[in-house]
């Protein structure tokens, strides 16, 4: 089935495709590279380059607001990732491996948050918390605060769905005869899950967790609506800074955030290769001329 790419001369269409692809890669990475480069700019002014300096990084680490926002981001991300991964994985399993009454309603409920735009989600959560806090105030006499709690609860609400989608895709790919074989070999439902299903969907669970983590760290709108005074996440803080005007400090913060994301990706990839469960086809794809 293969026509090895090296044997035939490249057709004009192939050259075009290749050129287009390299352009897209350049488009992806040029802004990122620029940002990283500028974070080392000694000059205040973004448009003028006066030499390499790490002053913005030292300024960043000395900035209490930034550090506090970073801490809040990490706490919220950790909380929401853990909870939504567990609940999302359970949801995927319940939907894919079981049949029960009301399953269709449950299915809709799990998928709905994905198609809600984050503005609407922000409004929803704000009104919900405001209303609930009024009620709690009425009953118990004290009003809970908006803060890490409300932010985490909101993130979990939309992250469950994303984790569920990813894990469910992986579950669906799983050969059902493997779980049947486990049962045939005397495994109880739980044993089959623990020894066969879970290890094989791990890449999906990890992928879902990574997605939840990223969405939590990325979130601006929902967080800004349900954050309180004194509790803000890093992206919301940066957003506020940017609206007031560009300072190179933001470049340094941005670069740090970029580096963190890239590290996350590379770590997760490393883990995926380690388990080696993803089967790749041996044959090479055909190239159209």
């Amino acid at each position, binding site marked *: 089935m293969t026509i090895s790419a090296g044997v035939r001369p490249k057709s004009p269409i192939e050259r075009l495709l290749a050129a287009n692809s390299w352009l897209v890669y350049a488009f992806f990475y040029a802004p990122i590279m620029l940002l990283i480069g500028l974070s080392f700019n000694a000059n205040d002014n973004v448009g003028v380059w006066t030499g390499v300096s790490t002053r913005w990084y030292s300024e960043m680490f000395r900035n209490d607001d930034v550090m506090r926002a970073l801490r809040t981001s990490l706490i919220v991300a950790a909380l929401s990732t853990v909870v939504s991964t567990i609940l999302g994985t359970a949801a995927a399993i319940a939907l894919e491996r079981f049949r029960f009454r009301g399953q269709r309603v449950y299915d809709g409920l799990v998928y709905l948050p994905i198609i809600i735009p984050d503005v609407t989600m922000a409004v929803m959560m704000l009104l919900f918390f405001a209303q609930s806090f009024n009620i709690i105030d009425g009953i118990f006499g004290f009003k809970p605060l908006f803060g890490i709690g409300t932010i985490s609860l909101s993130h979990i609400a939309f992250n469950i769905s994303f984790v569920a989608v990813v894990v469910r895709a992986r579950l669906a790919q799983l*050969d059902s*005869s493997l779980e*049947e*074989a486990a049962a*045939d*070999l*005397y*495994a109880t439902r739980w044993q089959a899950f623990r020894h066969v299903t879970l290890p*094989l969907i791990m890449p999906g669970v990890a992928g879902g967790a990574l997605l939840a983590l990223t969405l939590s760290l990325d979130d601006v709108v929902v967080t800004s609506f349900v954050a309180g005074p004194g509790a803000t996440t890093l992206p919301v803080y940066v957003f506020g800074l940017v609206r007031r005007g560009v300072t190179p400090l933001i470049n340094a913060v941005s670069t740090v955030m970029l580096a963190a994301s890239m590290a996350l990706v590379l770590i997760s990839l490393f883990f995926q290769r380690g388990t080696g469960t993803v*089967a790749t086809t041996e044959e090479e794809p055909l190239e159209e001329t």
Partner: protein
Amino acid sequence: MTDSVVLTGVTKRFGDVLAVDDLHLSVADGEFFSLLGPSGCGKTTTLRMIAGFEFPTSGSLTIHGEEMALNPPNERPVNTVFQSYALFPHMTIEENVGFGLKMKKLASADIAQRVKRTLDMVQLSHRAAASPSQLSGGQQQRVALARALVNEPQVLLLDEPLGALDLKLRQAMQVELKDLQQRVGITFVYVTHDQDEALTMSDRIGVMSDGSLLQVGGPQDIYEHPRSRFVADFIGEINLMPAVAADRDSVKLLDGQVLMAAHGAQPGQAVTVAIRPERFTLYRPDDELPSGRSSISGKIIRRIYHGDVFVYDVETAEGLLEVKEENRPTIEIFEIDAPVTVTWNPSAATVIED
């Protein structure tokens, strides 16, 4: 001899579809029993009900006398070899084979010992630490077998396990499996659509079609005395000639010829006379025929050489007949358009009442 598996009145419905229709089946202890039939006949569904992956809509299923129709698969003394092998890709061969024992919470020393013994039996101990993707199809198949046998089940279920192998390997494995079964003495219930496989390996065969069990018997019985057109046609090649029952032990062919053949039909009932191609012998029209044989004259219209046999298509008054003649040095080879007489021993004909 006690029966290993008994299905009584087992029916399975999937929504509107009747997959298995009122099945009555007994598999004897220690026998190699095959369920044979075309795709969609219900043989795999029946196997899955014995395994516990499906539950009967109605009926009873006992394993060694104990009612188990609604038991989950992990509570049955039965193991399955899957068509796709279903080896756990994230475990080594050793871990795969030992899985059942581990689920039963045996001591790890015991597990190691039994795994080694079983891997020796299928000649794969040298690959114990490999992962399934590193093994060939034939090797994977043997691991699947080992994984099931190591648990010493009362019944071993095999779902078309040789389907993915090429011809030579398949034939070698058929012999190996049969030998293994006889050595180990476990009851085998084997599902296949390959009638050759069923004939060569089984002690008894159950032929299924459209959810029903049409005939159960030994290979020779099924092959030489099919009781329905379907069974006659499904196994091997068959010549089917329409006829009418004359009296208790004769039938009249369409061309008026009367054949002596025992049957249970009413006089005047339409029946079919079934004769296997290899039971025919061809003679030249002017040859003297041995006494006691029935015959029909015809003309050769096709000859196919199969190395060990010649297959002739002969046009006769009873339709197109297929004749198989062994390729021996002394036989006469007939040419296309040659007139011939097709003869057979009356006892070779089976009368089928449908």
